[in-house]
């Protein structure tokens, strides 16, 4: 796999403008470009910044949509669920415990095969009422039929949101997608972003068409009846089949996106300096920023270390991870989440990866690290310490791959 092209003036196929915007504002631009019909909102940090930018665009006359401020997150997600059933393209989002307040609506959205696109501004769960990033909020729906994707930059947030509509609304799929944006480091940090022009977006993203599943008087149907033990397993198996089909649809969407927008990237994971890597680090979201810097520093000193950034957590990129990690001696998984009482008391990503690599011959040692909880900064020095511990495991040292190491916690 070739390294992804970075967006520069030379590689830009399209027009568009360059703007200094945050990850949240990038998501708002994606909503405008996707011509979303219905957006619901309920304030919670850091997701609320998307609300601010969307309402600004509407009041400036740049964007026309139904913008409904609900009385709670549960209603917020219920309203867009129904709007989507009658044929509206929808956008919604939340953070932390706000996302959890909508949990019943989140479960039925996936069960009903509603192609909703949501943004989760990742935030630590209360209590304590902290604002900083943790991934447990979005990860909580990992078993329900939601597709989950994590992004690293504001540009990737905008691009992924456009791709998300194309994937979710594909008739082979009809499942919701949550785009995770790390609170603060992405939602509140401004970078120069290429905001594509409308014509290019229109050439990439078809209109939302529910076909004969449209809830409309001219098309009398019932959605969401009561069903019991003689029906439920078949319904679940259908969702499972749809989720299995997402791999191909996502791959197609990324290929077409690369052609149309000139920004090519590998769909499911990003491989960073992995070609001859002997040890690898794995993580999601903005954690990639300090890790990439640390990897370059360690490479400059001759250490063969690489990094794999997991973009899509659902569908889990099992094949890609088996491919990229089967040759390395040891892997350090840095989780910005926790799973209390889980196998080896590890993070969610670490245990998912252990499962994915179990059938692989020459499977590497997998060491689990917990870091950066509640928005605590993970700096390059932390990453270099982690890589040192992974290198020690690779060399047969006394690192325990059946335990979990907390980095940056005060003893």
């Amino acid at each position, binding site marked *: 796999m070739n390294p992804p092209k970075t967006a520069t003036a030379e590689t830009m196929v399209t027009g568009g403008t360059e703007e200094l915007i945050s990850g949240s504002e990038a998501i708002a631009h994606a909503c405008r470009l996707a011509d979303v019909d219905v957006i619901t909102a309920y304030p919670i940090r850091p997701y609320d910044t998307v609300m601010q930018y969307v309402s600004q665009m509407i009041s400036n006359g740049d964007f026309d949509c139904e913008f409904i401020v609900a009385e709670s997150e549960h209603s917020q997600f219920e309203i867009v669920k129904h709007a989507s059933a009658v044929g509206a393209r929808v956008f919604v989002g939340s953070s932390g415990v706000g996302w959890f307040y909508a949990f019943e609506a989140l479960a039925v959205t996936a069960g009903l095969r509603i192609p909703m696109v949501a943004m989760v501004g990742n935030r630590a769960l209360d209590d304590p009422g902290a604002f900083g990033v943790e991934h447990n909020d979005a990860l909580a729906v990992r078993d329900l039929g939601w597709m989950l994707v994590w992004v690293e930059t504001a540009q990737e947030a905008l691009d992924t949101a456009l791709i998300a509509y194309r994937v979710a609304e594909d008739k082979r799929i009809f499942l919701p997608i949550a785009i995770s944006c790390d609170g603060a480091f992405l939602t*509140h940090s*401004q970078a120069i972003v290429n905001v594509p022009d409308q014509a290019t977006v229109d050439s990439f993203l078809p209109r939302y068409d529910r076909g004969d599943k449209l809830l409309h008087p001219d098309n009398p149907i019932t959605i969401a009846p009561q069903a019991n033990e003689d029906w439920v397993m078949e319904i679940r198996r259908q969702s499972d089949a749809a989720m299995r089909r997402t791999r191909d649809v996502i791959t197609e969407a990324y290929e077409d996106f690369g052609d149309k927008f000139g920004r090519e990237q590998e769909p499911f994971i990003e491989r960073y300096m992995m070609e001859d890597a002997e040890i690898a680090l794995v993580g999601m979201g903005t954690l990639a920023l300090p890790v990439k810097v640390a990897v370059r520093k360690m490479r400059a000193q001759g250490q063969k270390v690489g990094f794999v950034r997991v973009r899509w957590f659902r569908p889990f990129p099992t094949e890609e991870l088996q491919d990229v990690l089967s040759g390395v001696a040891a892997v350090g998984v840095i989780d910005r989440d926790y799973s209390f009482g889980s196998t080896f008391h590890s993070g969610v990503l670490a245990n998912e990866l252990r499962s994915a690599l179990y059938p692989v011959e020459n499977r590497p040692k997998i060491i689990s690290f917990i870091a950066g909880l509640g928005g605590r900064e993970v700096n390059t020095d932390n990453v270099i310490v982690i890589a040192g511990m992974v290198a020690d495991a690779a060399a047969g040292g006394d690192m325990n791959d059946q335990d979990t190491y907390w980095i940056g916690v005060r003893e």
Partner: protein
Amino acid sequence: MSTGSVEVVYRGIFQKTLAKNICRGVVFAAKKEGKIGTAFGRYSDSPERNGIPAKQFAVVSDTHDELQEHLARYEPDNNDVTIACDDTLCKGIESWAWYGLQPINKLLKKGGTLLVTSFQSPNKLINFIHRKGEPYNLALIRAQASFSGLWVYKDDHTDARLLGALAKVAPHIVGIDAICEVIEEQWKDDLKVISARKSFDATKSQPVSAEQGNEEVPFSFEKPGWKTMEEGLVIRGISAEKQVVAGRDGGYVPTRNATFKKYSTRTMRPVINFDTCTKCTLCWLNCPDTCFDITPDGLYDANMDACCGCGVCEAVCPVADCVTMVNEEAFDDNASQWEMWVKDKKGYETWMTEKISDQPARTHGFHHVGQYAEEATNESA
């Protein structure tokens, strides 16, 4: 190959747009010079509280790889320039999520420049600023603190003037030509460009030695580890018993939170005329921060470790000249006014008269329709 960063320290809400304009201006100007940059706020400061010290940052690099090292940071250190948008911030800053007093020059790198909007003399400010232990430079622009509200912006060119001054003290981050181009593009206002250029021409910095400044050790405390912190998110209540104050018999001084002082929020403080006080209790009752100590003789003494400077006491006091809000810059310490008064009543009267003559426009936001126009008229007069 280099990276430069600017830390903008400002008063929450009142100067939010000012700080944002400066940081965005830096990134846009750097882009004109072929560099790449990012602008972001210190996340824990938001949602902002009125007047509480907050920060935004602009980081500029020659290359994407260099910039990456400075992304996903909470609070960059080793900044080339620290801008204090209000000179009372020179006394130190404590954000509502920061536990301890941070000297204004703490995150400034050795040899960097502290740029302050002030009408005070440099030496007066140096007396407020904590000793850095490393040499740095101080530059002032003569400007109002430009306080405004959440929904209004007082466009008095302080943003353009700070950007112009920044180009003078740190031309390696952004040059004045790029700054002027950006101001022209963003605001489409020739007068703002002229303001930036004038400020560039007028700005001079002076060296501050490692040993100069306030000797006081800034308040700080040790955060507990996971093994020592009480489990279950329990915070023990503060004892209702009164605090024992040496030399005081009688009165009531409540025990206060020892780890969150809040006083760096203050840009004004109440000065009390104890001779005219009728002991009506209204200041003590209405103070949102319980900052009044009851003295043994039944008077009310505003405790300067606890006062946020909100001005409620002045507003509720029924006596014409008993409580007066005064510019915080006029004070060098947080000592008790009542103790000063008890010791030397004549001397206190002289001191008080001098202090209450210093009441510049430092209003907390906008209180009534037409206030903006009134202030603009006063300032131009």
